[in-house]
């Protein structure tokens, strides 16, 4: 009878939908994936080694380049780690500004993540362009505050670089007015779309117990139905002062992850509104810690983690008492979320691989470090 034969296909490293230089060595039987091996490191620059040669402050712009979609979140995690290590207090207004920035980051990341995922499904750029639309505006805000759109480098130990410019808050309010309509529109474009449902429902299922055993985090974990959100599980910064919900999925497939991301955007918007209500006056404390150029923490170690848009982002620092970290380790969410990729793809079709990868939402800058 007809004898089928297993075929090895290299998807990547140069491939339109691997989100960077990422390679998947796929063994297929017909169109069914039998095995998949992720191969990466093409973007490896030994970030940790570079960081150990720099002073604490000098590392801040390098963290921008980890997950270049979410530089604010990376800044936050690193600043928190150093503050824990050196025992630096952060003024309240600065904390609020940080939360504001990170939540804006979450919105822009999820918008573009959803767009990229649908793009991988084959929608020719339109959802991506719609996802980029609000991203652009949020990036404008970032530029207004920090001076750069992507590599913000906005946080400092014990605060942020400078206070928000006066035109920031009115513009943000204006943006917030449009945001629900925007999210609704993105959802309306895609949510009931029969083709999307066909491509997403039941694809790339990651059952909750498996998800937990693989140590994935962020929307991937919550999409599998485990309501683990660092903002709730171990509240940092001022997150314990806000009301927001944790969306979880039911099945753990691509569709759940998509819906969780959409819902998280709404929750982030809620948080931002609360931040604007509670934002203390600038008179309270200085938020420009110009004096903290040379942090010299005592010997010891510190670990700080935040709920970055992609998952749990952690920084582990060991200090030997000098101005440079003795050890600097990043726990990158994209990297760890790739662990179950092989198992998630097994048994599905080749065309599903890119969708599953898109639903994990990786950034190679963070994976390869």
């Amino acid at each position: 009878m007809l004898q089928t034969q297993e075929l090895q296909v290299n998807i990547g490293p140069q491939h339109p939908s691997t989100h960077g230089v990422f390679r998947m060595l796929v063994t297929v039987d017909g169109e069914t994936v039998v095995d998949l091996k992720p191969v990466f490191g093409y973007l490896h620059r030994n970030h940790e080694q570079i960081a150990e040669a720099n002073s604490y402050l000098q590392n801040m712009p390098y963290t921008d380049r980890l997950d270049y979609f979410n530089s604010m979140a990376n800044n936050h995690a690193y600043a928190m780690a150093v503050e824990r290590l050196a025992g630096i207090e952060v003024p309240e207004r600065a904390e609020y500004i940080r939360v504001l920035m990170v939540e804006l980051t979450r919105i822009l990341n999820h918008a573009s993540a959803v767009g990229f995922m649908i793009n991988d499904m084959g929608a020719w750029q339109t959802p991506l362009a719609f996802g980029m639309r609000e991203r652009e505006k949020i990036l404008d805000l970032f530029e207004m505050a920090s001076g750069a759109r992507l590599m913000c480098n906005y946080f400092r130990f014990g605060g942020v670089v400078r206070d928000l410019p006066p035109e920031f808050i009115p513009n943000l309010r204006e943006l917030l007015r449009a945001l629900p309509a925007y999210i609704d529109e993105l959802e309306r474009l895609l949510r009931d779309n029969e083709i999307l449902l066909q491509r997403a429902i039941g694809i790339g299922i990651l059952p909750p117990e498996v998800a937990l055993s693989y140590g994935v985090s962020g929307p991937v974990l919550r999409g599998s139905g485990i309501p683990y959100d660092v903002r709730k599980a171990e509240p940092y910064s001022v997150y314990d002062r806000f009301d927001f919900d944790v969306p979880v999925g039911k099945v753990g497939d691509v569709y759940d992850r998509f819906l969780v991301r959409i819902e998280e955007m709404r929750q982030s918007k809620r948080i931002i509104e609360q931040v604007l209500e509670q934002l203390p006056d600038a008179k309270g404390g200085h938020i420009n810690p110009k004096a903290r150029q040379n942090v010299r923490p005592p010997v010891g170690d510190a670990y700080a983690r935040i709920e970055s848009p992609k998952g749990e982002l952690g920084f582990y620092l060991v200090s030997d008492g000098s101005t440079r970290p003795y050890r600097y380790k990043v726990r990158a969410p994209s990297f760890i979320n790739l662990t179950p990729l092989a198992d998630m793809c097994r048994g599905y079709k080749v065309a599903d691989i890119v969708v599953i990868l898109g639903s994990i939402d990786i950034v190679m800058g963070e994976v390869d470090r």
Partner: protein
Amino acid sequence: MPEMTPAELRARLAEALPAALVEAEPLAITPPPAHGPQPGLFNPPDPVVRPDQLVAAALFVRDTLGYAYLSDIAVVDYLHAGCFELVYRFYHPSGGPGIVLRVRVPRDEPVVPSLTPHWPAANFHEREAFDLFGIEFAGHPYLRRIYMWDEFEGFPMRKDFPRQGDKYLGGESEG
């Protein structure tokens, strides 16, 4: 939200796995400076586990204590003290602060039993540690370099790895 201090964890571990714990002495991270005050010693409060008991301790943490989320494995190269320290970080899915297990292995023979067959979350962490620090994880199903290319020699994150990259620069200027 469950909370557990390192001391409590140590007590629970001592109760369940008395052979696992090691009394760890504080480390001096850097050699004492020629002049100026000696920076303090590194003495974290977390329990330090014997390498051969690591798997049992980790599974105890997961199955009995319920800390089912292995978040991070960080390796630190204490060149002066002559050891690698592996920092395993666990969290409870119900939230709360995490707990930490530490494992110290000598620098000249860094072998640690692998957690991957029991706990797949350790897979990439261990491969990364192997790639950058050269720590052998006995029993890891696929211990290959993850970032560097397979032919790469040496382990770039070790503290004694040459930092200036003379080896590569010298070759470059020949052309």
